[in-house]
């Protein structure tokens, strides 16, 4: 197929496509982190979980020659990481942030260790739905090639938003995250709720990792994540712990991530590396703009160690 020249229109189109393509891991990691943080813990280890999930998914997909067992394996591995974090944090005088950093390094290290043999072979990809088939323009087709995980992520953010208000489990997570004392007075065990919330958060991050290695960029390398797990944590704070906000913020970050490649594709040859840094700069700008020395963070779960 010949590339049709659509000029500068390529930039917004590429950003839209990028937003859809790049945002998916952000969506899953940030939704997972939103659940964990709503329960009153921070799991910075999701970066490690993301990388390990990517490796696991790729390895299992190569061995079974199907992406779906890979996806499940990544979720299971993420669940284990999350449960491990949750279990360690129940002991007194354990700091969840320090454990998160340890697990981040551990997850990445373990993934590199087990992942060496899988750098070469090619794994089957997760399927995408061509919503752009109506158009003749290949750029439009490329931009609207939407992976099923993106759709699942979008649905999940709606479901979570609903569930935090309308289900027992959702309310319990909010209670535990806002006040351990109130939770204990109700006969809830905050540690158990946080264990499960961290576990589910880990599983979602694992799925985010599977998307990285099985769809975009679609191969397993050691630099596959480049800090997306950490950015997703920042994004949860930006989104004020609201699942719909997480989804919107993930799109924004995804779009920013696509800015560099998009400019390069329309022939900007100078300085586009600067735009590769857009998501990182965006993280910084957002953190600065939304924080203040004289205001307390609205909507933050009361038990979070950063807000206490």
């Amino acid at each position: 197929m010949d590339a049709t020249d659509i000029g500068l229109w390529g930039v917004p189109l590429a950003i839209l496509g990028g937003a859809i393509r790049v945002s998916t891991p952000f969506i899953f990691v940030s939704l997972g982190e939103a659940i964990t943080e709503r329960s009153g813990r921070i799991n910075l280890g999701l970066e490690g979980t993301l990388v390990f999930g990517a490796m696991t998914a790729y390895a299992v997909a190569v061995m079974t020659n199907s992406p779906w067992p890979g996806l499940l394996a990544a979720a299971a591995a993420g669940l284990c990481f999350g449960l491990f974090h949750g279990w360690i944090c129940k002991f007194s005088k354990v700091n969840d942030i320090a454990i998160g950093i340890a697990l981040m390094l551990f997850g990445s290290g373990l993934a590199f260790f087990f992942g060496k043999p899988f750098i070469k072979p090619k794994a089957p990809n997760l399927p995408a739905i061509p919503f752009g088939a109506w158009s003749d323009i290949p750029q439009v087709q490329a931009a609207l090639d939407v992976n099923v995980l993106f759709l699942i992520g979008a649905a999940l953010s709606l479901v979570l938003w609903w569930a935090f208000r309308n289900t027992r489990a959702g309310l319990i997570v909010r209670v535990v995250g806002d006040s351990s004392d109130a939770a204990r007075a109700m006969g809830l065990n905050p540690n158990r709720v946080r264990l499960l919330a961290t576990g589910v958060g880990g599983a979602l991050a694992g799925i985010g990792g599977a998307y990285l290695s099985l769809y975009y960029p679609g191969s397993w390398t050691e630099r596959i994540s480049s800090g997306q797990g950490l950015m997703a944590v920042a994004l949860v704070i930006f989104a004020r712990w609201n699942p719909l906000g997480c989804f919107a913020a993930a799109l924004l970050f995804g779009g920013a991530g696509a800015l560099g490649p998009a400019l390069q594709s329309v022939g900007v040859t100078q300085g586009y590396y600067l735009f590769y840094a857009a998501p990182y700069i965006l993280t910084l700008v957002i953190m600065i703009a939304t924080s203040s020395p004289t205001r307390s963070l609205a909507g933050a779960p009361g038990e979070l160690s950063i807000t206490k």
Partner: protein
Amino acid sequence: MSAITGNKAVGVETIGMTMRFGAFTALADVSIKVRAGSFHALLGENGAGKSTLVKCMMGFYHPTAGDILVDGREVAIASPRDASALGLGMVYQHFTLVPSLTGAENLVISREKVPGVIDWRKERGDLAVFMDRMPFKLPLDVMVAELAAGEKQKLEIVKQLYLGRSFLVLDEPTSVLTPGEAQEVLGLVRAMTRAGDLTVLMISHKFHEVTAFADDVSVLRKGRLTGTGRVVDLDRKAMAAMMIGDQPIAALDSRAEPRPDAEIVLKVKALKAPDRTGLKSIRIEDLGVRSGEIVGIAGISGNGQKEFLEVLAGQRPRDAGEVMVRGSAYAATRAEARALNVRLIPEEPLKNACAPKMTVAENISFRTFDIDSNGKPVSWISAGAIKAFSARLVEQFKVKTASLASPIASLSGGNVQRAVLARELTGEVDLLIVSNPCFGLDFSAVAEIRARIMKARNAGAAVLLMSEDLDELLELSDRIFVMSDGALVYETPIAQASVQTIGEHMAGHH
């Protein structure tokens, strides 16, 4: 069956309740009887064993010895769950409502059985029917964090009734309420006990509440029951004697006559600063504090007092306005505080005025460790001088500490406050800014700390006292301001101060 809750009040009795923690006996052979449908007050100082006793009743602690009877039958209460099954419930001093949930969400989630998916239409209908029978009217669709303290307190009580409790322990229920709110809440609760719907055991140390509302009273001191009986048979003096025994209480200095022409030490003009939500601001139009007077600022917490203090302490930037101390602009730098003799005692001193893990000696020396006896900066810090200085102050202010080298966090609340007072009140004091100095302290510590503040006033210091305890303000102040919604809305000299009017302004009814 009663009209209001459909519950019937139960009576609770403890027999020979004893609780030991290791070698320490927190509760020794306490037997009290709370009649069904009565309003029973439990009096005692901090550490007298009041909360240990009710925690044993509620199943949080397992007593070393002793029995509990509910409606005359012996019961085993091994956990809070057992207690709630028997209809026993407790309203804690710190709220157990979840701030970011609405009232309705709080009520529904605290129920024993909550369906997996909550049908809000049905729940709202049920709640409306339930609330119709309640004596309190409350907005249930608002986030609890946005409710006033009085509304939270009512919601706590409503929650217990919603859960079907018919015996309620109220732990100092009015400590965060305005006088008007306190009257209202206690009055409604008493009406429910009169109707036979509810039995109430109220922990308190306010005599006027006990005499106004309670039927019976029991008094604990050092883990022992020192008296019990009908309230009508006892006067305040008798109850106070049961509470504190024969220990001496520091007497307030008699108030030196204020001089209306005394120098204005602190002057605040057109001050504007953002509050902690960043959405509203506090505005102090004009406030002057003269040498030798105590100016009290009353208000319900969260109306900007904390922010005002933070501005004066240099912890919060101001948008506009000026703060003058003895005619010169004051921005709360260390040098200015030292030159102008400004001292500060913030609330929760361990958190706001101490480095908790540093030693008592170091904490006491924070103001002076880096200057020598002539007020010149020193280049080497002398451990010996710090030790001698703090040893003298510990002695003088009767700070009880294991040693000068103990971390200050290991001291009890009263002793942390004494240590901070020692630091702030030593040397020349021209301006003293104090916030909630006696919060959570026991009788004798409170008396002593108030006496020290009065003494500083009589010695010529200008004192700005912010407090949520109206009794404290009425006892100490020469003038009282009321702060509401970020502004000073009312001023009265102490001679004309009326609790009623102050309470109305605190509640923002003007």
